């Protein structure tokens, strides 16, 4: 699969602050998440690819062109910023038509595309209302719609679920998945909410302190581990003692227990321990890694090296 974006030894320094430090990665079609804490370099990387910031060194190639040299390539890119970017006195239909024209579409086609995009993002009924009266969820949809109105090859979403309630967040994540799976537009999705990235993205890039710490398929980071997670309603301590008596290694995980075991024999040991300890079982499942674990590991590694996580 051809790479849409290529970062080669990309670095950006703001005087003494290193925002990106010799970062290299490639992004191909699909939904890719850029994960990282505040100040990790996510926004800087996106701004470099959008041509808003010149890298200190290295190159950022987008759709085969150098991002900082080609203004024209931006007609094939979409961007949904994190912060407010909508005029309050204008209707969504008028705003999207204008944004499509600014992306290079002729006026008549811009009007058609604006109406179509508003329909696909669920705002068709509200399209003639001034955007000042929209709810946060509707504003997020318009922000996404303006990024898609000119049918870009790739769209950059900066914290698209910020400020949304749980229902709005679910809807936005569904819309992001639809953007790639139905519209065929690749997505680069920056977030610090790991759950959102885990549920939406195909691949991730993890940045920390301006450096690339991990990249790969989300499935690789969230695959089943050799650990079984169980929760019981009572007699937790008796269960732990019974397991340890059988030589099974147990660690506490919130309200539950993680039980390590390389093969399926561990389930026999758990069953026997549950019977002995008379602990009523509530839940038992093979444990999956979460992206949070990745950050825990990285933070732990930093602490071991004497760095502040």
């Amino acid at each position: 699969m051809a790479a849409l974006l290529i970062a080669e030894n990309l670095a950006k320094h703001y005087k003494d602050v290193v925002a990106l430090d010799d970062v290299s990665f490639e992004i191909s079609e699909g939904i890719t998440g850029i994960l990282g804490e505040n100040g990790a370099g996510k926004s800087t990387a996106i701004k470099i690819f959008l041509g808003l910031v010149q890298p200190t060194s290295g190159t950022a190639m987008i759709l085969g062109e150098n991002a900082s040299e080609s203004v024209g390539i931006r007609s094939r890119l979409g961007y949904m910023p994190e912060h407010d970017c909508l005029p309050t006195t204008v209707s969504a239909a008028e705003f999207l038509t204008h944004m499509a024209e600014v992306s290079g579409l002729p006026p008549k086609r811009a009007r058609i595309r604006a109406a179509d995009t508003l329909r696909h993002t669920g705002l068709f009924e509200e399209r003639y209302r001034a955007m000042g009266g929209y709810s946060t969820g509707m504003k997020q949809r318009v922000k996404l719609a303006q990024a898609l109105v000119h049918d870009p090859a790739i769209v950059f979403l900066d914290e698209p679920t910020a400020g949304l309630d749980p229902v709005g967040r679910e809807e936005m994540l569904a819309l992001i998945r639809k953007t790639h799976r139905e519209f065929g537009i690749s997505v680069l999705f920056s977030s610090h909410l790991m759950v959102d990235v885990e549920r939406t993205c195909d691949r991730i890039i993890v940045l920390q302190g301006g450096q690339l710490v991990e990249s790969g398929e989300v499935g690789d980071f969230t695959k089943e581990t050799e650990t079984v997670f169980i929760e019981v309603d009572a007699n937790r301590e008796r269960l732990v003692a019974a397991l340890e008596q059988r030589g099974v290694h147990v660690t506490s995980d919130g309200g539950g227990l993680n039980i390590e075991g390389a093969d399926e024999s561990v389930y026999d040991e758990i069953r026997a321990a549950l019977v002995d300890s008379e602990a009523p079982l509530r839940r038992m499942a093979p444990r999956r890694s979460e992206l949070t674990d990745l950050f825990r590991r990285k933070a732990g590694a930093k602490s071991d090296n004497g760095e502040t996580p």
Partner: protein
Amino acid sequence: MTNGNDADSIANGNDTGAGGVETLEGTVFDIGYQHYAGPREGRNRARIAVYKDGLRIALGLGRGGRAKILPWFFIGVAGVIGLVMALVAGAVNTYIGPDAVEQLNLPSHSDYYGIASIVFFVFAAVSAPEMLCPDRRDGVINLYLVRPLSGSDYVFARWFAFFTVMVVVAWFPQIILLFGLTMGSASPWDYFLENWADIPRLLASGTALAAYTTSLAMLVASFTTRRAYASVFLVGLFLITTPFTVGLAAELADEFDNTAGQWVSMFNLSNIPVHVNDLIFDDVSAVTEIAPAGLFAPSILISWYFLWTLGPAGILWMRYRKLTP
């Protein structure tokens, strides 16, 4: 949504109803998301779109009633001044005599911008900030700059849009006045033949006034996200410099020599384009008649005008050019 049968009914064409009356059927198909396969006109289309949007903003078009009040009020006032001057000239020609307008030295094209310049300055102070401030306040500028448009493209398109509006607003009353003077004359054709040179003069003078006002107003607007702050500052700049410089120039002329007073008078920002108007028409307006700056050589007055027009335009450009690498 529909199924294959609906599609078939369309393919089969019209159906004949029970009474033998032909009925037409329509079916709406959801064909899902369609990729855009039309032309992409790139940077030029983007510039034109920002320019067109600027025209609409300046005149309040496509906005609510409140957005239209101020621009159209000032356009109306500027037009009324031209209309009144035309009516007075027509009445004088009719009731006193054919050459009475010239004998009485009634205000004409050369005097118009001197008389109405304050209206243009207030119009610019009120409308120009609307071209730049909301885009920065609402964050829309971030969306422009990730499209095939540089910071320079954006600011030039906005500048040119407001300049266009200012030119039209400056020419419109002069054209009313020209029409009034021509038609009010005993012999319109003879009047036209004698005064046709006023047409390029009024066009040039209106353009000069528009360029100066646009540059200064847009520069001030680029320093704030609040339209009100920019408007108040601009009104103050245009209105306060007049009494201040007139008074100080007179004091200096009395105390020292006239050159110092002349230079102070040059800082009367309302008069800068009117001096150019005087040079274009080779006449002195009522407002510049008493201004010591008028005694300077034409080259100094023209250079001063260009400094105050190209200078702010250049600083404005530099400020927006920095937004994209």
